[in-house]
């Protein structure tokens, strides 16, 4: 399987890339190519122009700032999973990346590419959803910030304008006394997840939940925040009974299924995975509070 013919562009600066996306028709932006290239090999996607962002160094960075972790869109998944700064400032990303593809694909696959591809079973969009990540889109007219909640426009579709490129993802400040976990179920390790759950919980010294974020992949065409379940947890004293109730609630949320994995099965998975993720996150809060 070979891609159909296209003209390849390798801009060396963001400005150059933005001019190309603004002027070329039927153009696609190439990040790490671990999803777009298969789609092109299958000829599901047949761009006339391919704009490779791989030679723009300014788009690959991991920055620890007072406002939290900021990551350049072209930073490879492998770089992020090996970053001490990420481990310290946003450990949920490391947990999520454990499930992403294989080392051969993480070496080239990028965080921005995954978030823009927006596969409903992909781990990084679910993580961005859980953390209320703020995305920076650049165009020749300047930059704008998009909160993750406003980013998906539908299945595999973002709300980026045709002349925009995602350049940066801000994960915000990691809460105090917090623990996180990423749990998913796939038929084979590293295969596409059927359902995935990303969670962060924070507790005060009296074990009262001060912050709870839970996002699910695989129950809808785009990542879903389980806001009802989060509300159930906030302000309550944490206990295994509370986690149990949260999991039961997660298992009753509406889900969309297919022939292979019907909605009821996905709901059941969402319940089990929520319980597993919250339990692990809680253990991590306790472990970090002890040290």
């Amino acid at each position, binding site marked *: *399987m*070979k*891609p*159909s*013919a*296209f*003209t*390849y562009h*390798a801009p060396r600066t963001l400005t150059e890339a933005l001019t190309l996306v603004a002027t070329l028709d039927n153009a696609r932006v190439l990040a790490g*190519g*671990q999803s777009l*290239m*298969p789609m092109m*090999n*299958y000829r599901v996607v047949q761009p006339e122009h*391919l704009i*490779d962002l*791989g030679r723009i160094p300014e788009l690959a960075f991991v920055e620890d700032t007072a406002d939290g972790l900021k990551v350049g869109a072209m930073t490879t998944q*492998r770089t992020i999973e090996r970053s001490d700064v990420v481990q310290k400032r946003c450990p949920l990303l490391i947990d999520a990346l454990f499930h992403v*593809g*294989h*080392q*051969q*694909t993480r*070496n*080239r696959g990028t965080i921005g590419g995954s978030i823009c591809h927006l596969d409903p079973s992909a781990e990084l969009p679910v993580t961005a959803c859980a953390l209320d990540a703020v995305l920076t889109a650049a165009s020749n007219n300047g930059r704008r910030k998009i909160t993750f909640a406003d980013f998906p426009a539908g299945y595999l579709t973002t709300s980026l304008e045709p002349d925009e490129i995602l350049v940066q993802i801000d994960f915000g400040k990691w809460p105090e006394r917090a623990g996180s976990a990423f749990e998913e179920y796939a038929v*084979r*390790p*590293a295969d596409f997840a059927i359902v995935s759950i990303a969670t962060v919980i924070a507790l005060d010294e009296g074990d009262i939940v001060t912050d709870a974020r839970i996002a699910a992949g695989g129950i809808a065409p785009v990542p879903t925040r389980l806001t009802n379940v989060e509300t159930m947890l906030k302000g309550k004293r944490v206990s295994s009974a509370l986690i149990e109730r949260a999991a039961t609630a997660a298992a009753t949320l509406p889900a969309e299924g297919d022939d292979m994995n019907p909605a009821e099965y996905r709901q059941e998975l969402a319940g089990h995975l929520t319980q597993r993720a919250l339990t692990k996150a809680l253990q991590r809060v306790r472990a970090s509070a002890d040290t």
Partner: protein
Amino acid sequence: MSTHEITITVNGKEHKRTVDSRLHLADFLRQELSLTGTHIGCEHGVCGACTVLVDGASARSCLMLAVQADGRRVETIESVAAPDGALHPIQAALSRHHGLQCGYCTPGVVMTLLELQRECGDTPMTEAEIRRALSGNLCRCTGYQGMVEAALDVLPRAAAGERTKA
């Protein structure tokens, strides 16, 4: 359609070629350089047969365009054995432990294990870590037991009793 003049260092040797934009790296290696040790299985990034190292990092060469490898250093299976044909320890261990049968996936498996060996240095590798590393290489005949045993044989071992089951 566009064509590009590219220079790629493959197995230590520099090659200059003019290529079509849509030529992927696996076809470049096989058709332009006659390095047919890199196998093409699925051609959409699932099977891992075409795994090569690009600047030392494993990559699916069917998901990378030759033009993207311009200026980069590529290592293929042809570089692994010694020039006199003596097998690399990873290759010898795969042979010893029946880690291959038809051999179609083997070049990709070897390149994956080579990267793992370089990255782990002296750090002991567990069976679970080896199985995770090999998860990106599909084998449809021998299965993985022989490959895992070969890798455990060659990579730094955990002290007895510390080896974890996958």
